């Protein structure tokens, strides 16, 4: 995949995530896609990740993936972005996140996600302190 194709795939992925289009995400994940997270340190399958999304989406009124800075390398991309969330209470929060995505044949084969879980409570509006 060339630079443009990888960038397009990356933005397609985040647009679909943002718009809650799980069918589109299923198209983007390779059948053997793995999702790993620095908070838990364990791998889950793309299928399990998608299965958890409907419940996850219920937790916020809106989530947007903004300020996307994308760099591509041979075999994938790194994206640095701000996840903005609007809770059902109206509380707004933001998290800074980085994802390294590996890609092949137009699909994502692996996602490694890095974030700071200490900010989750503030992001959700249930803790003290700054939201970002």
């Amino acid at each position, binding site marked *: 995949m060339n630079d443009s194709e990888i960038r397009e795939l990356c933005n397609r992925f985040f647009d679909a995530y943002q718009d809650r289009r799980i069918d589109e995400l299923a198209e983007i994940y390779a059948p053997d896609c793995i999702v790993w997270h*620095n908070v838990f340190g364990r791998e889950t399958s793309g299928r399990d990740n998608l299965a958890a999304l409907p419940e996850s989406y219920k937790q916020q009124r809106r989530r947007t993936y903004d300020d996307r800075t994308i760099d591509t390398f041979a075999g994938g991309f790194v994206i640095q972005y701000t996840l903005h969330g609007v809770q059902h209470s109206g509380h707004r929060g933001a998290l800074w996140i980085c994802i390294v995505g590996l890609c092949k044949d137009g699909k994502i084969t692996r996602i490694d996600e890095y974030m700071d879980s200490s900010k989750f409570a503030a992001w959700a509006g249930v803790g003290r302190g700054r939201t970002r």
Partner: protein
Amino acid sequence: MRDTELRQLCHSYFDAIERRDVDRVAELYAPEFTFWVNLTGTESSREQNLETLRGGYALHRRRTYDDRRIDTFETGFIARYSVSVVTHGGRRASLWACVVAQCKDGRITRIDEYLDSSKFRPPQETSRE
């Protein structure tokens, strides 16, 4: 910079931090170097970051940057790695982190670091090795 040069720069950086060679780290930073971390969301300057490094070494007996997976792009590198520390009390702990570095003319001009600060908490008794 070529892929090989970027990879070498990345390893030189982590190796220097690991062996507490702040003078070498300073050589690898461009004069306009900026450091950003997702814990605070604020930028710090080259001198501020070098000072933080010097001060940070007192916190642990040893710190190593392991399991480095490096990818390079046109203007920099991404490193995914484990930071493993041994405290003065002998406890071991590790966390997973990722840096995105911008580079130019053999030096690093910017680092964005992403990690999980909840992993800084002292390990539980059961995790002692």
